């Protein structure tokens, strides 16, 4: 079965794309370009309207560009100046016509909805109803209502082998375990999308179960994981368990067939600060929904304060799975999410608590770490999330703390301007892809987090060029890349069919669960499979390729942010409402 799958995938991959573009389409008022991957003698290109094949625009191809890290040469067909909605192809003498693509307002609506709904499909402990999940409906698995306390997590009130209820939450990735540190950035990214674009989300319909309670779907979905994160906190002391997990990864079966014992493992400072941050952010949001979620906001603030207090008393409890396995017979081999540098977690949590309470202690903790450099966020590098928050909440900060945001903005703009330079000169006319090091594990999520940084830069600077750069990376993950794949399941004419994702693999349905962003090109190839040697082609649509074709909640969350942000911001541009 697997070899057949692999053969089909390989067959699909051997057709080299000649002109690659955003398979979801382009916004009329933003950057629009395609990339020619074959050598051509022509210097011009034409846009033809479809279906009548009438020339509507003529442009000049860029000079050939080299990547500097591969043998691939590219030429850019930039048609940003053309802004008429419709369906088109690109024609260049000497290569096949491009596939049909759209220019339209709201062109990424389906993507924006699908990316968010993907979280619904990732729900643990819950049956997915056919009315919402369609053909991907399934019975519940992993109830997680009686999860064992692993010896590493034992405490005075919770002895080893006793049980607690940690039901709910999202499956982390292609596996069925649940990790607080990865949940933190994922949940926060959804909450940040809401905080930045609340007006937009109030009217979005994703078709997930809710109580017709006028709560935006993005919040309904975020609450599903938030409530699980809250359960991962030991109410006796405020510490948070690192993960809810099997001892080993499940087989490639559906959730209801995965029946291994589940454990909560070791409290740690990273997990606890993640909860402190997310719960503080949730407090800010859910205090505006007291009827729909009575008591939730206050519970979140209390949980956050308790988590902060535990962290102050336990400032550097690192999750070390190797050490844990040396001291316990119940050895754990699932994802580690170990992080030895927790300064960025302190930055993030202090910023969220400062934004939510305005209290001096949190400002002091944040200010004490203001010399630290910040960079693109990931599950282990979350400091800049706190910067986004304080800039977003600047208006609500006590007056004496407001001025610090100009430092944060400057640090963010330093990164944004670097991305802008990459966008302008890069071989794919995208931010990602200018460096060999861009093609690492989860490269597509890096692309989306770069876009979030650029969107944030746009929000406080109002410079359109940051939006152009941000949307260029969306073009990248949707097909304007060397592989010619749209890396989002169910979006585009060539998208992953065999992600490393147990739900998609085991459900007996040909199409994978839709709306999932796979990891993407990864020159490090940790799964040992045979890839194309070029860094930007190091991708396999193969269920075994966990290094390039797995999915993960922390990769989908920035896709949700970017796709929905662009839908909202593009509308504003159209209406001149910036």
């Amino acid at each position, binding site marked *: 079965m697997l070899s057949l799958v692999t053969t089909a995938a390989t067959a699909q991959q051997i057709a080299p794309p000649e002109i690659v573009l955003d398979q979801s389409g382009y916004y009329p008022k933003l950057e629009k370009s395609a990339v020619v991957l074959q050598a051509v003698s022509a210097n011009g290109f034409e846009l033809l309207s479809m279906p009548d094949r009438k020339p509507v625009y003529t442009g000049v191809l860029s000079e050939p560009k080299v990547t500097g890290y591969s043998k691939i040469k590219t030429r850019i067909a930039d048609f940003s100046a053309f802004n008429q909605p419709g369906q088109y192809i690109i024609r260049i003498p000497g290569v096949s016509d491009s596939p049909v693509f759209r220019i339209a307002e709201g062109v990424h609506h389906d993507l924006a909805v699908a990316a968010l709904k993907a979280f619904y499909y990732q729900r643990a402990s819950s049956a997915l109803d056919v009315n919402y999940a369609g053909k991907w409906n399934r019975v519940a698995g992993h109830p997680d209502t009686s999860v064992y306390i692993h010896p590493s997590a034992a405490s005075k009130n919770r002895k080893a082998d006793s049980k607690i209820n940690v039901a709910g939450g999202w499956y982390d990735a292609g596996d069925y375990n649940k990790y607080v540190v990865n949940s933190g950035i994922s949940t926060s990214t959804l909450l940040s999308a809401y905080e930045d674009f609340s007006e937009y989300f109030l009217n979005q319909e994703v078709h997930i179960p809710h109580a017709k309670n006028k709560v935006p779907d993005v919040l309904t979905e975020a609450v599903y994981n938030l409530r699980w994160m809250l359960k991962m906190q030991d109410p006796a002391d405020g510490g948070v368990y690192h993960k809810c997990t099997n001892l080993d990864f499940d087989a490639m079966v559906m959730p209801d067939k995965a029946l291994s014992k589940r454990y909560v493992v070791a409290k740690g400072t990273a997990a606890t600060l993640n909860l402190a941050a997310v719960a503080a952010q949730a407090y800010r949001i859910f205090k505006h929904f007291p009827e729909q979620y009575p008591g939730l906001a206050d519970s979140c603030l209390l949980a956050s304060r308790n988590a902060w207090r535990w962290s102050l008393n336990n400032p550097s409890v690192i999750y070390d799975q190797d050490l844990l396995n040396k001291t316990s017979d119940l050895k754990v081999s699932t994802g580690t999410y170990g992080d030895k540098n927790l300064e960025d977690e302190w930055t993030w949590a202090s910023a969220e608590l400062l934004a939510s309470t305005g209290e001096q202690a949190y400002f*002091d903790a944040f*200010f*004490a*770490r*203001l*010399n630290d450099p910040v960079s693109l966020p990931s599950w282990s590098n979350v400091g800049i999330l706190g910067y986004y928050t304080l800039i977003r909440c600047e208006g609500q900060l006590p007056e004496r703390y407001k*001025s*610090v945001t*100009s*430092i944060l903005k*400057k*640090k963010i703009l*330093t990164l944004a301007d670097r991305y802008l330079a990459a966008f302008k000169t890069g071989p794919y006319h995208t931010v990602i892809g200018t460096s060999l090091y861009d093609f690492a594990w989860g490269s597509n999520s890096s692309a989306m987090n770069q876009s979030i940084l650029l969107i944030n830069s746009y929000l406080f600077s109002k410079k359109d060029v940051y939006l152009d750069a941000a949307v260029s990376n969306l073009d990248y993950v949707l097909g304007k890349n060397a592989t010619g794949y749209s890396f989002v399941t169910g979006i585009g004419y060539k998208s992953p069919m065999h992600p490393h994702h147990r739900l998609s693999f085991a459900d007996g349905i040909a199409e994978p669960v839709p709306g999932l962003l796979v990891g993407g090109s990864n020159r490090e190839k940790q799964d040992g499979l045979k890839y194309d040697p070029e860094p930007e082609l190091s991708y396999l649509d193969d269920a075994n390729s966990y290094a390039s074709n797995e999915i993960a909640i922390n990769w989908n969350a920035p896709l949700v942010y970017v796709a929905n942000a662009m839908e909202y911001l593009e509308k504003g541009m159209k209406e001149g409402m910036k």
Partner: protein
Amino acid sequence: MLVGIVMLVTSSTVFAQKNLVVNGGFENELDGWVDYSAKATPYMYSSGKMSSAIFSSDSSKWTGMHQVVFLPKNTQYILMSAKIKADAVSTGTKSWNGALFLFETLNKQGTKIGEGINIASVTGDEDWKLYEKAYIIPPGVTQIKLLFALGYVTGTMFIDDVSLKVITQSEFEKYL
């Protein structure tokens, strides 16, 4: 009223620009400095008539000098700077080994907080060059220890025009 405002601004600017380092130009030889092997020298300088020189022929040793600077209350932003010249400074076994300009943060008890932070690590030959570091003072830090040393290398380093000034936030942001 207008005069009062102008005087206030002028006074604030003067305060912000004051060099808190004692004898940063080494015109009074090594007054104010704790030295382990440094020597004041009139034969090489960037400004004035003197500089400090540190020489080492033993790459197994750390040799140099330091000065602890007390910060005014509620200091939030500082600028540290010095001019350094390197003569035949070898490379060490670690990437940071060299002619070093670094600092440590201390609390009011004089206890070091965290690790030292490198501002410059110079090897080989290099003419006088200005090194600067703008820094945010974390809560609880009341003193800065400025250190110059040959860190596990041989050669000679010259130091001149050492400065530590309190700066404003807007001045700090110029260094971001």
